[in-house]
């Protein structure tokens, strides 16, 4: 593993089944200074959360994905198995955006999103968590 990373580098798990969407947002977030783990579906994401040595700080997931779970399923799984882990959802379906309320702290990001909007969301969640941790 990379041993020259700063000790306080936050880790973002990006879950997106379209490689042409996943690749640029993952690269953008790496350029912002985060350690980024890429998962192509919810099953890969749960594998990372259960077995990978690096603790994940925030999950950023697409809603509409093939596989055993979509983004909502993943959000529910996280609520059950990793309570306290923040998840940001992104989706194109208006119905999905409404259904996501209650599963995550913020409203889902509508797709297509600007990378900066994703980064703003992440920064806000990290800042809120730090404030909660220090209070």
């Amino acid at each position, binding site marked *: *593993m*990379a041993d020259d990373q700063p000790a306080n580098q936050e880790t973002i798990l990006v879950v997106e089944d379209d490689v042409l969407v996943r690749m*640029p*947002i993952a690269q953008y977030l790496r350029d912002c200074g985060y350690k980024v*783990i890429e998962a192509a579906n919810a099953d890969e994401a749960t594998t990372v959360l259960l*077995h990978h040595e690096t603790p994940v700080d925030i999950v950023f997931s697409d809603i509409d994905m093939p596989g055993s779970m979509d983004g909502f399923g993943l959000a529910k799984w996280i609520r059950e198995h990793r309570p306290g882990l923040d998840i940001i959802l992104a989706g194109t379906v208006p119905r999905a955006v409404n259904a996501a309320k209650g599963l995550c702290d913020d409203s889902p990001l509508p797709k297509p999103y600007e990378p900066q909007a994703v980064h703003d969301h992440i920064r806000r969640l990290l800042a809120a968590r730090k404030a909660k941790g220090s209070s």
Partner: protein
Amino acid sequence: MGGPGDNRLRLEKQARTRHTVLIVEDEILVRLFIAEHFRTAGYEVIEAANADEALDVLAHISSVSLLISDIRMPGSIDGLRLARIVRSEYPTTRIVLTSGHLPNVDSVDHDGFFLKPYDARKVIDHIKTLLN
């Protein structure tokens, strides 16, 4: 503010200054392990979870210097067929294959084969010689 399209252009620009390696591996923990090693070694890394994703990437990013692909993968094509397509459609892209078993890799033109579990440092050493 840059959109995803701008990001793609930026990736293209980066690929001109640093070698871009496309890793194709369906086992997430293996993929992120090797991707991390390659990034630490200074390569621009693109991760694909199967051969279909790899072909999507190759169709949009023109400067992939090297493909490192697992052979046995779910999806419409396996690593051997992917290697044949890449050799034919992207002849300047180097091809390294990996597998947990010993397949008949001689049936396809490639630039290296590593049996899993492989030592990431040995793979990187091999790739350095291929790309220099």
